């Protein structure tokens, strides 16, 4: 994200967005302070997290929980709160993760 953003003369007036469906380009996960960490061993694939996630950030394939799309996960913790399996979803601070591995 280091390239220069367009100036006021280059953008549509009044904050109009002229291109349809471009919300996908806006990575809403980039201001998260907590993130869910998934433990596949503890998961029963009930998909409660998928149902409840307000940002459709739970990745599912062939009826199985596959992980979390951190580009759009905002770290609200609803998934971890709804998850019936102890330890399947744990909320940790972003700082603790990025300190270890970078994001």
């Amino acid at each position, binding site marked *: 994200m280091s390239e220069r953003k367009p100036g*006021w003369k280059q953008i549509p*007036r009044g*904050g*109009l967005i002229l291109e*349809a469906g471009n919300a996908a380009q806006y990575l809403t996960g980039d201001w998260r302070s907590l993130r869910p960490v998934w433990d596949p061993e503890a998961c029963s694939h009930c998909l409660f997290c998928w149902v409840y996630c307000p940002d459709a950030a739970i990745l599912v394939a062939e009826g199985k929980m596959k992980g979390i799309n951190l580009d759009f996960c905002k770290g609200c913790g609803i998934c971890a709160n709804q998850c019936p399996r102890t330890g399947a979803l744990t909320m940790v601070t972003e700082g603790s993760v990025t300190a270890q591995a970078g994001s």
Partner: protein
Amino acid sequence: MSRAQQNRVAITGNEAVALAMKQVEPDVVAAYPITPQTDIVQYFSSFVADGEVQTEFVTVESEHSAMSACVGAAAAGARAMTATSANGLALMWEVLYIAAGLRLPIVMPVVNRALSAPINIHCDHSDSMGARDSGWIQLYSEDAQEAYDNILQAVRIGEHPDVLLPVMVCLDGFIISHSLENLKVLDKEQVTAFVGDYRPDARLLDAKRPITVGALELQDFYFEHKRQEAEAMVRSAPIIEAVADEYARLTGRKYSFFEAYRMDDAEVAVMVLNSAAGTARAVVDQLRRRGVRAGLLKLRVFRPFPGAALAEALAGLSVVGIMDRAEGLSAAGGPLFVEVRSALLGRPRHPLVLNHIYGLGGRDVGPDQIEQVFADLLRAAEAGEARQQVTHIGVRD
């Protein structure tokens, strides 16, 4: 464009405004009645009920909703209008900024009335002056004729592709809104031809080119869009002039940013907005007969503020009295005073500037009060200084 045949009618200020709206025939009018604007909405709703206009008339539950409905309609691609006064305008507050920020050219007559408290239904300019920094163009009208003419021009100014800003057309509550006046009006066909169609290049109801209106912008883009909005206000100035020229060719009535009356050799002058200009003109004539070099500057366009042109027009005076029909409550004088004085600052030569606050809550302003202002100005001209910079006239001590 050849000069149009015009009809002479005797109608009130509010009727003149309603007639202008009827002739513009916007796609949507969303409005809530409030004294002294009420007749406008009432007349317009009759036009709708009687099938005289095809306008979609939205009866809303508040002015906040009226302006919100206009924003939605204008964003959808419709020409939208409303009208209000005083506390109604205050209730629209947050949506005024949204209309301007989204660059929606809504036209709104504002029948000037004092803001509460104390509750009062009569004229002063505290309502529109409070909205002066909301991003709306503001045109002021001395009488019903000017209000009618301003509304037709407002449509063209606001919708111009270089501008795309909403426009308020202000006129004095009761003094103008409820007084019968003899004025010249155009035919519906002439108005239709003059205002043309509103064809925004992007609109919500264009299913082939879907857009998003009103998206969130944080630190990364908000500033750029405010910069655009500021530029639109600057660019509206030549458009206001061009539309006035075209309107003059059509009607013979020429408007500009202000009217300079007997200013050429004036030594002292007053500056006013709206209906007090008529009284001030009469006082100037009277003083001239007595040999006083008096003048009047009637400001028509407050936003965009024509600071440089005003400074030019006032440069030759010894003293100018800025008459504010609104208390800025800033402890620094009324809003018009503050802006005019700031426009004069930095000029090599400029007059002494005094401020007279008058007519709050509909307090009548007669020739005697304006003579009192001129007496003050002449005293200051002689002394080379003012005893007092801000004076409230017509108030009991």
